[in-house]
């Protein structure tokens, strides 16, 4: 029986017409829509043994209003083939700069670490299975203001082993990491958001852990950090071990949820690991 995930091979990027660096298999687990890929390159982390392929896409969280997000939307809309220069220009617009956290919603919770003992999971689906249901969390009516701290359910700390499929940089200086299961695992693909946070003030109790995890993430990717559009690593998902606190994204409890459009149907929760307090990639 042939591997059905390798049934179709694509050698050009449909969006730009450029030749792909290597064949792409759109049916492979965790792939972006082919027509969202505008760049394709490989990198080897400093001191690393493996190299990883990056599929740079026009996919953004659907609620984003950054210059880059609006640039992608306007370049893609219409019946004519989009101009590669317009896509490139949008991709170059940084959604944020620096390292300080620049958001306001639930800032106190996002920049704090839970108090409970760390629980360990060997698969993202095991972690997702333990999360309180959406309606239970919505009933808490968690305030969205900047001083809104962690509720009891968000005091949990976790250690989870998984694979990084995609990441992007957001307007508040957070990096969104889309972490999923082993691509060879049986059962459905499943992903959840884990956020390498923008930094709090240096006198914050969480500063040291958040700074260390952000440095670790940035060091791994070097000059290949994502911008506003999601970078996908799905051709060879990057092994990752994450520690952090669980956070329920009350801002998006109704309306559009975070996540890249190609993977969002497989993201069954708006629970996140936020902030990531430790990350080991590769």
């Amino acid at each position, binding site marked *: 029986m042939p591997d059905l995930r390798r049934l179709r091979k694509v050698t050009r990027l449909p969006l730009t017409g450029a030749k792909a660096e290597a064949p792409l298999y759109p049916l492979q687990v965790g792939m972006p829509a082919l027509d969202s890929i505008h760049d394709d390159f490989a990198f080897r982390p400093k001191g690393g043994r493996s190299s990883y392929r990056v599929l740079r896409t026009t996919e953004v969280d659907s609620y984003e209003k950054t210059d880059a997000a609006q640039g992608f939307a306007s370049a893609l809309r219409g019946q004519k083939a989009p101009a590669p220069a317009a896509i490139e220009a949008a991709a170059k617009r940084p959604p944020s700069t620096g390292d300080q956290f620049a958001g306001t919603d639930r800032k106190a919770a996002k920049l704090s670490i839970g108090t409970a003992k760390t629980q360990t999971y060997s698969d993202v689906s095991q972690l997702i299975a333990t999360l309180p249901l959406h309606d239970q969390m919505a009933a808490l009516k968690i305030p969205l203001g900047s001083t809104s701290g962690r509720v009891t359910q968000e005091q949990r700390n976790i250690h989870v082993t998984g694979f990084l499929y995609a990441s992007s940089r957001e307007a508040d200086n957070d990096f969104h990491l889309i972490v999923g299961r082993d691509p060879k695992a049986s059962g*459905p693909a499943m992903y959840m958001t884990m956020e390498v946070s923008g930094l709090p003030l240096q006198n914050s109790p969480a500063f040291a852990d958040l700074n260390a995890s952000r440095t670790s993430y940035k060091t791994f990717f070097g000059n290949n950090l994502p911008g506003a559009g999601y970078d996908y690593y799905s051709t060879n998902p990057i092994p990752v071990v994450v520690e952090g606190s669980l956070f329920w994204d009350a801002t998006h409890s109704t309306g*559009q*949820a975070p996540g890249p459009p190609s993977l969002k149907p497989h*993201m069954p929760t708006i629970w996140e690991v936020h902030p990531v307090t430790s990350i080991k990639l590769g």
Partner: protein
Amino acid sequence: MLDQVRPGMPAKDSVREVMNFVSPQNVRYKILRTSEMDAYDPAPKAEKKRASKS
């Protein structure tokens, strides 16, 4: 209740209406009406503006 990890499901936050439908062969189906459209389609707002100008 929708089973979101079922193959072929749309993003949960794109579903704006769930309808029951019975086919002429008397088979029951569920229709999930979504906000998803082809990426190249014009936004409905832009279309309205164009119409009002003409």
